[in-house]
């Protein structure tokens, strides 16, 4: 029951990790619940993922809203608003 977390760009630098396996618990079934769990780590996680901060979440490489479900085996990426082009 794990998912792969991917952090990119500025958030990767702030969290000091680019990719990690995250163990899902029964109560973590949406992106919103996952974000709440990550915020509990405190520090940069609490700061950067606070409500109102600008970041995006992609589940299996599609950008989703925070009510999107999260299942074992998913790849969940969290990243800042994009700035390419």
């Amino acid at each position, binding site marked *: 029951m794990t998912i792969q977390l991917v952090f990119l*760009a*500025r958030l990767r630098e702030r969290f000091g990790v680019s990719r990690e396996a995250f163990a899902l618990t029964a109560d973590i079934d949406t992106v919103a619940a996952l974000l709440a769990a990550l915020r509990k780590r405190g520090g940069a996680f609490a700061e950067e993922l606070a409500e109102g901060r600008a970041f995006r979440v*992609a589940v299996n*490489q*599609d*950008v989703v809203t925070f009510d999107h479900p999260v299942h074992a085996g998913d790849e969940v*990426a969290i990243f800042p608003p994009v700035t*390419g*082009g």
Partner: protein
Amino acid sequence: MTCHVRVHEADFDLGAEIKALRLGNPAIGAVASFIGCVRDMNEGDCVGLMYLEHYPGMTERELEKICAEASDRWEIFDTLVIHRIGELKPLDQIVCVVVTSAHRGESFSACQFIMDYLKTRAPFWKRESTPHGERWVDARTKDDAAAERWKQ
């Protein structure tokens, strides 16, 4: 409609790319292209170097989706998007978009549409070096507004 998407460090040659797209297709009456380049100034600071990061896999998928949406909206033949990653410096080319069609209106519109959506949806991030140190470039609300107008 064929959609070509390439993400790599190497530079590109727009002339050669257009030649390859047009090859053997006399139905093409219009080719519209856009090139984005690294500027030496941003937010009032000199930019020495720029580093472009992306999310491999999602980037290509997202660019293909944007090109597919363009071909749903306009009668076009081919789309090409090349986006460079890694270390770039002022004067370097960053991105190119090329669209072919029978008539100019469709190519012009689709090219602008693809570029506007790329700026707000494709997972690329720029980090620039200035005399004050390194910084991640912030997303611009102007870019969101440019993409938004295609929804009207």
